[in-house]
């Protein structure tokens, strides 16, 4: 889900219009615009955009796996 607002221990996240407040205590340096993986109301990891883009380039056949 995409982070739209960061508070102290929590962040407001959104996906397809669904908005939730989740705990972000297990992550460092969460900021607006980050994507996070949520499980049981807690963000367990940040999505690494660089790695995601790399995989997407493989999918688009721009680079070899």
């Amino acid at each position, binding site marked *: 889900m995409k982070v739209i607002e960061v508070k102290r221990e929590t962040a407001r996240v959104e*996906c*397809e219009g669904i908005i939730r407040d989740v*705990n972000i*205590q*297990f*992550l*460092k340096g969460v900021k607006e615009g980050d*994507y996070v*993986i949520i*499980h*049981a*109301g*807690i963000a*367990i*990891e940040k*999505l*690494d*955009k660089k*790695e*995601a883009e*790399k*995989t*997407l380039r*493989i*999918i*688009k*056949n721009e680079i070899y*796996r």
Partner: protein
Amino acid sequence: MRYIDEFRDPSSIKRQLKEINKQAEKLPSPVYLMEVCGTHTMAIGRFGIRQALPKNIKLISGPGCPVCVTPDSYIDKAIYLSHLKDVIITTFGDMVKVPGSSSSLEKEKSEGRDIRIVYSPLEALAIAEESPHKNNIFLGVGFETTTPAVALTIKKADEEGIKNFYVLSGHKLIPPAMKTLMEDKEVRIDGFICPGHVSAITGSKPYIAISEKYNVPSVITGFEPYDILEGILILTEKIVRGEYKDVVIQYKRVVKPEGNQKARKVMKDVFEVVDAEWRGIGVIKKSGLKIRKRYEGFDAESHFPVKVKEKRKRCGCICGDILKGKRQPTDCKMFGTICTPESPLGPCMVSSEGTCAAFYKYGG
């Protein structure tokens, strides 16, 4: 950009299947790849991956559905606790339909017990704060992905001095179950598709030990079709090349080799490792988590003397063998006839991540 649909691109899927077929031709005999996690089982069913693979690559489902492996005795304890005076039971939704030896939480709720479904343990804690005159017992069930959330909730309860919140811990660890399956001579596993979000917490280290000891390659994949097929391709390539001791992280956009150390630290602070019973598998050494003495005040088992008689009323289904990957749901005479998602007999049909539920919904 949602980082979801992009991983479902049909043209890349066709390319991957071509590559998988090419590798499969080099295999001397069929290979059995186990997807350990229930979320993978559902994704494999939903995207028709099992049917799209060459015939000599077989996918078998593993024990990674927390609700499915929760034994009768745990459900019986939860039901016992729900009968105590001034008690609120909070639980994840999947748990309520699971049959214990003679009832289920859903049935108890319909008979007036205060059993509430929550999305997060933090929500359960909030209910406890709102109801100071009730004892609130949260049913802590789940693997390494869920346990840190429960541990964090217990720490919060401790910091905030909340005295009416308890956890009945049924938490379990995935790697010891994988080891047990490798020791079972009746189970054949040539490669593991490791759980993506459990691995976000654990990292790849626990699987390296398994791959090295049992000569079985592992891949940590995501949950989109591209991810799963890439994982299958990587495993097939490893098997063809004889690289059995390798562990590969395919799901690099989420899983780091070291995992989430912060989450593991909180989990370790609150829980200690003990032996645990898995439904259908039996007791697995050092595979369960118990609340440490330091946080004993939040341990439902030590606070409430739980008396449950050992009852062994079996429904006759083959969930045990399905959880070990020995047999498939379609091998069970009750599957799809008297055991359906609307009226499930075994836990593999109850849980939304159960193998039987996946086969029923998407076909085998």
